[in-house]
């Protein structure tokens, strides 16, 4: 798999609530017929990507910087699956799939809570996901988004391992990464059952923080940035970090 920059945002045919309204010719006029609301799920839009405050991760802080990057990912995952679960009553997931996605929601919420507690209140900065009209009731769109986020999380954890000075911290993050692998497999198999989609390659990707940030920006309201990034990134077996 390649890390495709911006691929998360490209999942959405209609960008934002504002774009959607413009597209259907309403402009700013608030004539929201129920069918339009359903069509774009714009009531779920939390803000435009990169429209919010700057959010800077400073790698001179050392391991906490890696924990902060992981915390951004886990906040996105927990929030996303939380919305998916909340939309089950109106969505086209089978009950078996609903059970599986609820498990994943639980794991991601626990990961988010673990990182928040580990970072402490002064460093655990909250971010706001930007969904750009993603319909949380649409099985295919939800699974496609989930696959992107899970694969990105794996590449983030694997790429950042080399920067973690404290081996105890590195192991804690790897314990999470293994379970993200279990998630990515289940999501891939739901998309294309009993093929190689659970694990398309024998080696997972390692992504450098800047690559992760660029892939995250289309789904974050805050403007994510990095300072004092380590000068060297050692690639993994796939050589594409």
């Amino acid at each position: 798999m390649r890390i495709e920059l911006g691929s998360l945002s490209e999942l959405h045919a209609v960008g934002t609530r504002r774009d959607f309204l413009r597209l259907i010719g309403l402009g700013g006029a608030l004539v929201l017929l129920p069918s339009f609301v359903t069509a774009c799920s714009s009531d779920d839009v939390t803000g435009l990507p990169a429209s919010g405050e700057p959010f800077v991760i400073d790698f001179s802080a050392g391991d906490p910087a890696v924990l902060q990057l992981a915390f951004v990912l886990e906040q996105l995952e927990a929030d996303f699956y939380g919305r998916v679960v909340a939309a089950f009553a109106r969505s086209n997931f089978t009950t078996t799939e609903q059970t599986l996605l609820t498990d994943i929601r639980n794991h991601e919420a626990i990961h988010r809570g673990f990182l928040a507690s580990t970072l402490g209140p002064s460093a655990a900065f909250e971010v706001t996901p930007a969904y750009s009209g993603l319909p949380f009731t649409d099985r295919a769109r939800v699974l496609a988004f989930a696959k992107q986020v899970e694969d990105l999380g794996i590449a983030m954890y694997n790429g950042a391992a080399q920067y973690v000075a404290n081996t105890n911290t590195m192991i804690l993050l790897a314990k999470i990464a293994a379970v993200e692998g279990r998630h990515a497999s289940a999501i891939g198999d739901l998309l294309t059952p009993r093929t190689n989609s659970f694990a398309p390659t024998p080696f997972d990707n390692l992504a450098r923080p800047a690559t992760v940030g660029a892939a995250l920006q289309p789904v974050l309201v805050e403007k994510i940035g990095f300072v004092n990034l380590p000068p060297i990134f050692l690639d993994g077996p796939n050589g594409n970090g």
Partner: protein
Amino acid sequence: MADRRSTISMTPSVNTSRSAAGPAEVLAALQLLLQVEYLQSTLYSRAKAATGLVPATDEAVYNTLADHSEQQLLLITEAITTRTALPAPSPIFDFTVKGAFPGFAFAAGQYPAFQMLSQVVEDLGVRAYLGQLATLASDKSALNTAVAIFTVKGRNASEVRRLRGKLGWITNNGRDDLPVSLQPVYDGEENVQQGTVNVASLAGDFGGNAGATQAFDEPLTSAQLSAILTLFVA
């Protein structure tokens, strides 16, 4: 909320790390992982060569596993030779696991036992790699090789578990319906103390203690791994 515009400066909140492992320790870790790779690749290559074992519906999955394990075995072998050492030879494996799967011989009709073996070697693989990462941390190239394989083990474990109707993740220290002699592969997975955080205390609305154990995989020590590997050796 803290001012997000300012950059962050803080001190690490976790324990100090142990002293770095040297090249000999790195090689020992790679040799141990090589044993896991021999176990997995032998299981899948023998299944692939067998007639009537894997149903056609599941062939694509098991062919993928055979292909991955072969390539992962190669990469670990290369990691050892690159460090100018000789890879240890493969043991002769006993896939009855000392009689836990009586008469198992990759024969037609033995697919349920084969699926159980797949589950246990994949869950073992995840925990084996997790247990060696700290040692590999002193050699970033070896570390990167290991983590790139490690998360694929997690993917593989989830797939083979789900294919046989189990959850993709491990709950508490549960071995599902596997033979009791394989319980050591799951012991320790019930841990909920992650660094300074008891994650069960965060899991009230998110699956409770069971969810807290599912959300993290747990490492096996080298001693635990070696003891488990002997179960599979003839």
